[in-house]
């Protein structure tokens, strides 16, 4: 569904991606793990169109999308839940959700809003409150729900459990499973390596801008290098 080929992305003079290739099959969950500064966010932002790659290709459903502006990529069905959630603090919870559906013109928006509020009751409860007044976990739920409002075919999640309590982390992973079960493909960036590998079928390991390891998650979980560096097992 998504094919990233030999992508190089720069921040000014700093090269953050040095020829990264990732492929995400339809209806799968793929995870990307890696240390701080490895380039995970850069990769997701490049796919979502917030950054343009200097070279390489990105294709989605067989069509090239690299270099398109974010709103065009979103219209094609890729939604990003950014690192740090990026909730619009001065808009209400409901308005944040409505903004998620900004690119949609079909009549199904209101029904989708109802369905998402059923899935995340806290958002219905807080719908009139300003986004900035929610707790971290609630904001993460809102960020995910907002991205789902565009009814994406591929959902990009950038460290959705960052800074959340263990109970909330489990809830987020449960949500990711549900989203996947409902037919959405997921590309997940996580520092919560073990849980990320458990939900995903495939894992890529990014180190300083390069993919150093990749394969089926179940196999990589047994890989000594992964055990040592990412799972804290000698």
């Amino acid at each position, binding site marked *: 569904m998504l094919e990233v080929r030999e992508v190089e992305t720069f921040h000014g003079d700093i090269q953050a991606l040095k020829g990264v290739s990732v492929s995400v099959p339809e209806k799968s969950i793929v995870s990307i793990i890696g240390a701080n500064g490895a380039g995970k966010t850069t990769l997701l932002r490049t796919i979502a169109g*917030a950054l343009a790659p200097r070279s390489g290709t990105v294709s989605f459903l067989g069509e090239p999308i690299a270099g398109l502006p974010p*709103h065009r990529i979103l219209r094609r069905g890729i939604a990003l839940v950014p690192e740090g959630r990026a909730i619009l*603090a001065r*808009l209400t919870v409901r308005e944040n959700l409505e903004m998620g559906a900004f690119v949609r013109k079909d009549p199904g928006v209101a029904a989708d809003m109802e369905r998402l509020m059923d899935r995340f009751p806290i958002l219905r409860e807080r719908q009139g409150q300003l986004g900035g007044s929610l707790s971290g976990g609630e904001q993460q739920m809102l960020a995910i729900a907002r991205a789902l409002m565009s009814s994406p075919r591929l959902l990009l999640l950038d460290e959705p459990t960052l800074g959340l309590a263990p109970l909330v982390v489990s809830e987020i992973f449960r949500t990711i499973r549900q989203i996947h079960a409902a037919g959405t493909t997921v590309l997940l960036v996580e520092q919560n390596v073990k849980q990320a590998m458990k939900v995903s079928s495939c894992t890529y390991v990014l180190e300083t801008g390069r993919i150093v390891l990749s394969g089926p998650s179940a196999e990589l979980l047994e890989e000594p290098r992964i055990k040592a560096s990412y799972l804290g097992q000698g």
Partner: protein
Amino acid sequence: MFLEQLVNGVTLGSIYAIVALGYTLVFGVLDIINMAHGEIFMFGAFVGMLIVSKAGAPLPVAFLGAIVVTGAMGLLLERFALRPLRKAPGVSNLSSLISTIGVSILLENVAQKVFGAGNHLFETPFAEIRFRVGGVTVYLVQALILFVSLALMTGLALWLARTRTGRALRATAENLATAGLLGVDTNLMITATVVIASAMGGVAGVLVGMAFNYINNQIGLSMGLKGLAIIIFGGMGSVYGAMAGGLILGIAETLVVAYGDSGYRDSIAFLTIIVVLLIRPQGLFGQAAPGMRR
């Protein structure tokens, strides 16, 4: 007498509010002060004057003409003075600010060449018509100014609060990058904002012509400074702050002239700001210091 002064103050204040809204909208999305806004306002006044006084056409045509011309000026300003700087990597906000200063000087020179330095009569056919409401004398012109500016403010507030595009504009103002990720064409949004803000300046220009019966090429500067004062006073980027600030300044100025010393008229704006900023550094409706907004 007092009530009449109050009506005068509200009339003047509602024009100030429209001018200040132009500043605040642009500041909201671009985080810069559009220093050319005062001159765009002045061109609105001149276009209105040409249509009403020289061509003898009715007022609605003057508003329409001013909106079209100043809206187009906003479009050009964004396209040629702001967008190239926004695209360039590593360019600070300061460059856009300087760029708008350049445009303002250019526009003032053009106005000087085309219209000369003196006063121009802005003739409204019903300048002398007045009526009494509950013992207060109100000029038809004042009622019209109030009607136009209140309609404009209400319309803008409703548009921002209730419509899909208005919501997208607020999202863009809060965080450009996030709005982009949510599918807002932020460049289009910025262009629309600068055009709308400029057209509001144009409308304010015609209103000032109606209110004072004469215009010259200096009104851009003085009105520009007051507009700036108001948005600092009301809170940078705050729509309601611009409205409230404009009204407060208009009333304060009128009352000072009526009951105090008219020589202090223009100092009032700046005196009020200093006092407010000492008490509330973020302005009346401001959220926080600009640098801390995100």
